[in-house]
């Protein structure tokens, strides 16, 4: 691309530059003035938008481990073309999370302490290790995409040899990480609103992240096909949508059986802001997608799949925000709304992640199916040549 083309101002470019500038300003402000000046956090509201967004970044990255497991562990090669977009999404999701943690931690310079100071009873200890380990896994899974571009074959070969243990480690770390976000709230039974508090929170978090992560893949595939005017593999996306449907039904059943068993259904009839938000979350993120996905015609229409993925993702976002912010408001006795700096830093990181995604998708073979096919051929050729050597 020519330099003139990059500098050509478009609406989105101007908005993005503005957001990033404000975000940088807020970042400097946060590190020079402290958390009190930069955020609306308070002694009884110690966690806010940033922690909430950490849940989103990690949750929406869930396709990274589900697709990798489907293809590499279950050898279900129909989804081959989705592996790279899923890994890239996960990697950028985790990058945003790490960025937010750095601004959110009171002492970010001590972030490595959990590596040498252990407390096995702490969910936060587990989470820190999961973030560090799974980010490393993602880096290793993504590395071949970058190495290919520069034609570095030896490291790719080494990575391919250890790829299966890496994928297995990735699935295990993700499973622990996704569920541990739910476990974080197990210790606040008196604080979190009963509609969200449950001893099954880790299970609920794990199941819901799979549907949301896969919806994210549909969402990106559609936008990518539109942006680069390439075809879309509808058959694969339809199969994905069936998995999402099963996942949403499972998630719904677990939630309501749990509410019923613990005698909390009564809360659904108590009018309050929390109840309305709970209904909204279930309606947008569960009922609507389940209803729409149960029709074959919607499952096989790319526009509808895109719309349904937006519903699922929105419902997921609402759920995580409800657990991390709204559900705790009543017991904190203080209405929390994020400050300008909290919002601008979050937006900056999201915009940067979007540009990184775009840049990588444009320059490296991420969505390019042809390339993946070529690679497969190469693999087959390789195994044939190996066969030859063996037969000699």
């Amino acid at each position, binding site marked *: 691309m020519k330099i003139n083309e990059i500098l050509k101002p478009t609406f989105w470019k101007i908005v993005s530059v503005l957001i990033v500038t404000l975000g940088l300003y807020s970042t400097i402000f946060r590190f*020079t003035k402290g958390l009190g*000046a930069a955020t609306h956090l308070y*002694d009884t509201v110690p966690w806010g938008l940033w922690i909430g967004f950490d849940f989103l970044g990690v949750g929406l990255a869930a396709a990274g481990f589900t697709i990798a497991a489907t293809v590499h*562990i279950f050898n279900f090669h129909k989804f081959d073309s989705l592996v790279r977009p899923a890994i890239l999404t996960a990697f950028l999701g985790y990058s945003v999370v790490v960025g937010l943690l750095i601004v959110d*931690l009171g002492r970010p310079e*001590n972030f490595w*302490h959990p590596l040498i100071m252990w407390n096995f009873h702490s969910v936060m200890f587990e989470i820190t290790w999961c973030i560090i380990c799974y980010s490393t896994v993602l880096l290793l899974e993504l590395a071949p995409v970058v190495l290919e571009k520069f034609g570095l074959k030896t490291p790719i070969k080494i990575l391919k040899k250890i790829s299966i243990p890496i994928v297995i480690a990735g699935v295990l770390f993700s499973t622990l990480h996704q569920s541990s976000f739910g476990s974080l709230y197990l*210790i606040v039974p008196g604080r979190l609103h009963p509609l969200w508090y449950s001893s099954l929170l880790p299970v609920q978090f794990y199941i819901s992240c799979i549907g949301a992560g896969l919806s994210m893949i549909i969402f990106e595939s559609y936008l990518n096909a539109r942006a680069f005017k390439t075809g879309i593999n509808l058959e694969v996306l339809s199969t994905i949508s069936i998995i999402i449907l099963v996942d949403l039904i499972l998630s719904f059943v677990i939630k309501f059986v749990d509410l019923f068993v613990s005698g909390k259904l009564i809360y659904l009839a108590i009018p309050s802001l929390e109840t309305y938000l709970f209904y909204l979350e279930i309606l947008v993120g569960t009922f609507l997608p389940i209803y729409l996905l149960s029709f074959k015609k919607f499952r096989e229409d790319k526009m509808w799949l895109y719309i349904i993925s937006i519903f699922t993702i929105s419902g997921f976002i609402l759920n995580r925000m409800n657990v991390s912010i709204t559900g705790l408001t009543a017991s904190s006795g203080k209405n929390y709304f994020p400050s300008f700096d909290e919002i601008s830093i979050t937006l900056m990181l999201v915009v940067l992640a979007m540009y990184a995604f775009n840049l990588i998708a444009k320059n490296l073979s991420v969505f390019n199916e042809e390339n993946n096919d070529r690679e497969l051929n190469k693999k087959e050729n390789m195994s044939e040549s190996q066969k030859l050597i063996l037969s000699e």
Partner: protein
Amino acid sequence: MSKEKGILFDVTLCIGCGECYKACKEENKLPQSNKDYLKDHLSDKTFTVVEQYGNNYARKLCMHCNEPSCVSVCPVGAFTKSETGAVLYDSNKCIGCRYCMQACPHKIPRYEWETTQPRIRKCVLCYDRVKAGKLTACAEACPTEATLFGDMDKLIEIAKDRLKENKDKYFQEIYGLKEAGGGHVLILSNVPFEQLGYTSLIPQQPMPEFTKRAMEKIPPVVAVGGLFLTGMYWLTKRKNQIAKEENESLHRKYYHEN
């Protein structure tokens, strides 16, 4: 080893003079935070407060739980339960995740929001004084013995005796004996504790148990998950290979026959 120590606070004896508040500020070298001590609240500059509810005065401070949430949730073990019973905090370890603040059932830990090197701040049951054989600053300053300091077993005995001997005077419960598994600050009152701003929603079991059940499942999940995934990898790979070989032999057969 010395016995575990604690505090017994009796609402019926408190006259709201604020001596404990002042002594605490002095002992911990905390700056003034409110001209009227009755209107102050817990903060990084205030580790104990005296709150007015009609004719009653209620103290708020760290309850020094037997099995503290903060000790269990801290990822780096910055919180410890000491031999005196006090829950202590080491700011050199702290990474500032603030999970202790979120997890504390009594909502006690406060944060230095205004600095760039923030610490968690809270009552440490005058650890250094107690180690040296002294009372806590608040107990020493109290003119009416509303705040008593002593061995835990003795304090529990005194509290139970007071409830038994003055059935009409006291609300028949000891706050802090069972809340969140119990702790080292006990409170007696003439009215139900919710009326004095003490949380009544606290479970009677130690809080770390809620998390323990989930954390215990990690090793089996990793072991079973790891085995399952490895097994599935070999199985599906073998299946694909067999399918491929069969396909090839079919082809070969076909060519031979023709």
